């Protein structure tokens, strides 16, 4: 299994500001994923972060709003830019381990973001 540390665990932010969320894994992984869970909803994939290349964003999510960094194989950050109350959600990072024959996907503990 993979141990994923995510911080901050929660934050309350003002409209128009930005927040950077960090995700640290205890082993090297090729792909890291960022998800959003809006209140009372399921998880939606924001983007896939590969080391050494630009992140791949899902429909409805753009780099200017959610810039992602992936400087090495154990770390990634997601920034929520120019926040509005609609950005209030739980943000989770995820990693895939085990390769094609034993694929397992693990999650960090999430960042609870509230925007006032």
């Amino acid at each position: 299994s993979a141990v994923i540390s995510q911080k901050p665990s929660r934050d309350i932010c003002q409209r128009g500001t930005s927040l950077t969320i960090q995700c640290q894994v205890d082993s090297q992984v090729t792909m890291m994923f960022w998800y959003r869970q809006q209140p009372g909803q399921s998880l939606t994939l924001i983007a896939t972060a590969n080391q050494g290349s630009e992140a791949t964003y899902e429909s409805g999510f753009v780099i200017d709003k959610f810039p992602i960094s992936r400087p090495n194989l154990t770390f990634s950050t997601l920034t929520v830019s120019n926040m509005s109350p609609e950005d209030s959600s739980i943000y989770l990072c995820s990693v895939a381990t085990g390769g094609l024959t034993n694929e397992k996907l693990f999650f960090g503990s999430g960042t609870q973001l509230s925007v006032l």
Partner: protein
Amino acid sequence: AQTVTQSQPEMSVQEAETVTLSCTYDTSESDYYLFWYKQPPSRQMILVIRQEAYKQQNATENRFSVNFQKAAKSFSLKISDSQLGDAAMYFCAYTDRGSTLGRLYFGRGTQLTVWP
């Protein structure tokens, strides 16, 4: 596009009894993984069980087992000898084994209550 449907927003079970959570999915792929995740109030996403589509045998993990019906695209979770600690939101999820390996598609979740 892949979709995952959980038709039971809420379920309840008496402690020590058995409960089954339903999940159906839609995909044109033949090789994929299916997962059940548990999300307690701590919001940590915990992997409960995993099924590979090419395996006919149903996955089991202690008190948790699945009924995987590939032709029907059905993937239900059975929890035996339910415990109070099983109370949580349960999400069914899908990922391809191809180029999008690791990108999870989630159902809307089933909130499980366990009564003492």
